[in-house]
């Protein structure tokens, strides 16, 4: 029968022999120190598993066999338990990922506003389908679900930074620039685009010092505030209420 799903699962966690090659001793030692820092944030060690899987991706670029073993060893879990968690979450990649995950939102709102056209354009431009990577290892293309920026539709994410109000043309240019190593900046994010591995280390909870870069709010986030300011609308005066309560 015909199959109507737009998105396919990435398949089972494929643990190639190569991905089981043990870490070099210095890498393993550094990973251990990082793991201890993560575990220390929680009352119970197992809570560290998701950030530790992000940590594995910051070193290997995906969830490797040795990464699964590392998590299991540090947390006293079985490899099956770690794999079971790793395969549940879409951000954990089951095969080597590109330097930049380009995610086109094709959930309903963005799709209708033009996300479908963006997807078609960039998919054709790169010759990639969902969760596939360019031969140069630069870009992995994904269809993504709603990323909570609907007022900036259509939205494209690069390594989970916001590129708001995109068009097919702007997205083609974006992927070309990323492949060429040209400077690109998220619309709401830091002043530069981090790589997949850099971003994964941040998600493991290690600050990268970029928090104070970029805007506080994009234009759409401020539309209501602007309307209120133009009309001199404010919340009811609180002081009067407090005075009343004090009477």
């Amino acid at each position, binding site marked *: 029968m015909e199959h109507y799903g737009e*998105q396919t699962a990435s398949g089972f966690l494929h643990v190639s022999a190569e991905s089981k090659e043990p870490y070099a001793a210095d890498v393993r030692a550094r990973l251990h120190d990082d793991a201890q820092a993560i575990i220390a944030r929680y009352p119970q060690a197992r809570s560290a598993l998701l950030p530790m899987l992000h940590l594995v991706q910051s070193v290997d670029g995906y969830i490797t066999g040795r990464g699964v073993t590392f998590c299991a060893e540090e947390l006293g879990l079985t490899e099956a338990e770690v794999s079971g968690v790793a395969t549940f979450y879409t951000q954990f990649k089951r095969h080597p990922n590109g330097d930049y995950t380009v995610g086109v939102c094709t959930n309903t709102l963005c799709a209708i506003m*033009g996300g479908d*056209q963006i997807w078609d354009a960039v998919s054709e431009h790169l010759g990639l389908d969902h969760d596939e990577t360019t031969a140069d290892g630069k870009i992995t293309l994904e269809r993504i679900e709603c990323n909570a920026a609907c007022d900036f539709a259509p939205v494209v994410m690069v390594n989970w930074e916001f590129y708001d109000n995109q068009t097919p043309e702007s997205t083609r240019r974006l992927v070309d620039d990323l492949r060429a190593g040209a400077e690109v900046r998220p619309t*709401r994010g830091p002043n530069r685009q981090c790589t997949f591995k850099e*971003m994964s280390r941040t998600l493991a909870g290690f600050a990268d010092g970029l928090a104070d870069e970029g805007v506080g709010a994009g234009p*759409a986030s401020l539309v209501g505030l602007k309307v209120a300011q133009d009309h001199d609308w404010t919340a009811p005066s609180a002081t009067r209420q407090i005075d009343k309560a004090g009477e």
Partner: protein
Amino acid sequence: MTTLTPILTRFWDHPQSWTLATYEANEGYQALTRALAMEPSALVSMAKDSGLRGRGGAGFPTGMKWSFLPPSDGGPRYLVVNADESEPGTCKDIPLMMAAPHFLIEGVAITSYAIGCNHAFIYLRGEVVHVYRRLMRAVEEAYAAGHLGKDIHGSGFDLDVTVHAGAGAYICGEETALLDSLEGRRGQPRSKPPFPAVAGLYARPTVVNNVESISSIPPILLHGASWFAGMGTESSKGFGIFSLSGHVTNPGQFEAPLGIPLRELLDMAGGIRGGKRLKFWTPGGSSTPLFTDAHLDVPLDFDAVAKAGSMLGTRALQIFDETTCVVRAVDRWIEFYKHESCGKCTPCREGTWWLKQILGRIEHGHGTEDDLDKLLDISDNILGRSFCALGDGATSPVTSSIQYFRDEYLEHLRQGGCPFDRDASSLFAKETASV
């Protein structure tokens, strides 16, 4: 006419809106000082008196949730903030945490004190790196200023806050799935009871609250429960952030008293784009049954929206004009639910898959009229029979779209395909037409 009430959004236009300095220049952490001088039970009463209902979708009274914790047994109790904002159309918590994260951090400190928690968690979805940076930075600044950590403001109260990034799973917005995920497991919902208030994180008493709920606590404390309750409607007190997206001239965030109707919000947003007509909309995300242009004057509060056949949800107002194919919209939402179903229970796992297959063939003109009954029958077997609200939510767009637009489904069958031009509903019809 209702006027907007910028409170949480008030200084989002400040060039450094997210910093501690900006927050402190805007009454920041004054509420915490006041809270620490109060009895914790008085804070719970204040939350109850304010009438604040959870801003994460379900609308459960926040103060009542706090009061469900059993009396202290000397062991740990936890506050977990649900910052997993992923419901399609919902886009309020992410800009709030990006622009003004200290509202949340101060709210966490006050709430933790109120419920006797010394270690709180913020579970943020993993797909918003810059928001994660902002939250980590805000926590760091708050520690350095003595708003978190040991002996806060000299009160003897200690609090640690851990910001935790998820890894991509809509289901983790369900509070018990979130707790499992925070414990390092697959994010699948738990059987209830026991509820988190009794056995939550690490099987300890736990309060799980939404970002906007907790962020509303400092202003409520500072200005009074009666100030808050003076806004909104009888069933739905206070203010909330309304998110307009889609075919409106100026999509964006509008902070207003609950009860404001879409007609007024649309006016403020410049109306439907290009003078076109409103066709359908969601009041609170894709899991809330669709409304049409017949519902423009429904007060957007919990009771009125429910009475009109939908749910207020997260005030995620996704607006679609007459160029939009409702079958295409619903088909894509169901693709989402199918993808995000955690697989734990059969009605949701199998049901969403079959809904997708049937909607797909109708959209492509391969279905039959019997398929409409089949969609309704499958929906009937999911609704109320699933483990959590994900399955229930998946049926909302299906059943409501068939209710209001049955003939449009049939038109797909008559024409052997979708009667709409997808470029007409996009923002750049001309560009794609020329490609």
